[in-house]
């Protein structure tokens, strides 16, 4: 159950990442783990996202990536923006079925507890839907935001 809450917290953190930066002080153990894992990372920026988690945004191989570490310096999640071409066949099929008349705003690939999934934000005339699509093509709505009238 605890794993589920951490996973849910990370999903929300990934959705809202980039909105706040508190210049978090990150312990050396976490920084060392990051430098070992992402030796060619460029321009890392750290922030604390609560629940003992640290978020680092960086560039590697010309891609902007987001990594999340816990206080024990374990990499608990990794995320990056992807294009539709980068999506597995089954994920792309689910998007085509579920978001036929919607505009795709962004797609993020998320690796969490060694499980890969995709966070898709799509907008239609009713509002914006953020959904998680699993590598099997499974679909789960994470958040729905209604358009403001007027």
């Amino acid at each position: 159950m605890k794993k589920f809450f951490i996973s849910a917290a990370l999903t929300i953190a990934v959705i809202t990442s980039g909105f706040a930066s508190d210049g978090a002080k990150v312990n050396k153990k976490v920084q060392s783990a990051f430098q070992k894992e992402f030796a060619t990372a460029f321009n890392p920026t750290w922030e604390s996202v609560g629940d003992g988690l640290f978020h680092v945004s960086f560039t590697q191989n010309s891609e902007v990536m987001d990594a999340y570490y816990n206080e024990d310096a374990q990499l608990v999640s990794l995320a990056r923006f992807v294009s539709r071409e980068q999506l597995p066949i089954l994920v792309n099929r689910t998007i085509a079925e579920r978001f036929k008349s919607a505009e795709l705003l962004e797609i993020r690939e998320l690796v969490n507890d060694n499980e890969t999934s995709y966070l898709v934000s799509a907008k239609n005339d009713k509002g914006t839907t953020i959904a998680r699509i699993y590598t099997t093509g499974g679909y789960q709505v994470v958040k729905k935001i209604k358009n403001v009238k007027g």
Partner: protein
Amino acid sequence: MKKTIFTLALSLILGTASFANNDESINQKAVQSFKKEFAQAKEVSWQKAGDLVKATFTLNERVLFAYYNEAGDLMAITRNITTDLLPIALQTSLRKDYAGYWVSDLFEMVTGGQTNYYVTLENADHKIVMKSEDFGNWASYRKERK
């Protein structure tokens, strides 16, 4: 079915799959299944080889291949990709653990609702074929000395 998929994967890896263009003899069960499964497909062409038929088509601007058996069952969907289209964990693993190799072949295969990637890596002495076990790890599938 497992044996058929194994044979198909191996023939694709080795490049020994030979498909004869023969539209007239293509099993109509396969054609009907295909039309139902991939209603939005464009530029469809059919080829036949042994017990399987192969449809080559474009969907969402991507070239895909679908394989059907004689009963019209969809056995596999594949697409050829480049390294930068791999999921991040598999891509990172290749860069970190096989830096001394170059990629000579890479494709994605969907069978039974599961996705696997097959990569052929080469250096001056060896040729390795690996299959993704999940979206994070590679397992050796075949290794040979050149």
